[in-house]
């Protein structure tokens, strides 16, 4: 599977460096290595979800408990979480660090991902959720740390879009 193992490792180490103690996740192709790394880490609480919106409640509970968390999901999982993001995280000023795999953008071959790809950024903007892109492994650690810093200083959700460039190693034709 051409999901980048090396860059998944860069992402995971960046999360660890930020003091993340709980990760909620719903598997999707680009996230498989990351989720496995969380599973293999005895210091990490991994919560595998039935639906991504549950992750908002779990992250809120973790925040109340003083544990830093991250949500790993596909952009369709972000779409499925919007009520929780608005009527819990934004209403109650909960810092959420959302790592969203940006499927359905240029280069996507799966037709079923394409509509969600087009909706992702407009929806983040409509909700007033700041986001940046994770596209260069050299900048992953800094961007995650900055997003987390902002999420905690503003007490607001922040999003990082995991791009194809970072996550997918297309085999040579």
């Amino acid at each position, binding site marked *: 599977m051409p999901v980048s193992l090396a860059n998944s490792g860069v992402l995971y180490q960046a999360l660890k460096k930020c003091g993340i*103690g*709980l990760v909620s996740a719903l598997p999707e192709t680009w996230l498989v290595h990351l989720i496995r790394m969380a599973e293999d880490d005895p210091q990490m*609480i991994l*919560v*595998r*979800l*039935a*639906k991504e*919106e*549950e*992750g*908002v*409640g*779990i*992250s*809120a*509970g*973790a*925040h*109340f*408990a*003083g*544990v830093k*968390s991250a949500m790993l999901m596909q952009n369709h999982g972000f779409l499925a979480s919007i*009520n*929780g993001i608005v*009527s*819990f995280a934004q*209403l*109650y*000023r909960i810092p959420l660090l959302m790592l969203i795999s940006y499927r359905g953008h240029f280069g996507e071959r799966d037709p079923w991902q394409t509509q969600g790809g087009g909706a992702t950024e407009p929806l983040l903007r409509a909700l007033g959720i700041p986001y940046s892109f994770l596209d260069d492994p050299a900048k992953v650690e800094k961007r995650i740390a900055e997003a987390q810093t902002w999420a905690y200083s503003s007490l607001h959700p922040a999003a990082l879009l995991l791009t194809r460039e970072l996550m997918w190693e297309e085999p040579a034709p």
Partner: protein
Amino acid sequence: MKRLECLRAIYDKLEGSLVVTIMGAVATELQSLGHKPNFFYLQHAMGLGSSTGLGLALCLPQQKVVVFDGDGSILMNLGGYSTMARYRPKNLVHVVFDNESLLSVGGFPTATSTGTDLEGVARAAGIPHNKTVKGLEEFTRAFNEAMRTNELTSIVAKVEAVGPSGYVTGLALLENRFQFKRYIENLK
């Protein structure tokens, strides 16, 4: 059996626990008995009360966590039963006040009024301890037992579809949220 009677019967037992309620009658009625800093009322995000309790319970394994849920809310997140069951934190007590109704929006019947059995759903999802109770004494016994038992427990309390005349209270949502977090910080 009325929800308010249930809450009154076990109110004293909530001391020292982290309590999460859903929106609507249960939040208002618990506040009417006396707000405490260890109570958090999730006044929207229907379905996520149980998820919030799960997050708390997993991060604070030594701390008892009680969730007061409702049929309308849990029906919006039946998958939440399977996630709770998957991690089955021993310190989590989940209570569903099932009035078979979306009471706060005018009393529209939910699927539990036409036969959906939440205890059956919870058991099939893998929750280890489950009980449906219909009388106050039975509720009190089941709740006290769940608080003593070191096992994830889900109680479905069948209650009448009656509640307070209004739902907005004097406690601001953010005041509640910051007070609750501060309470937990001070436990350490």
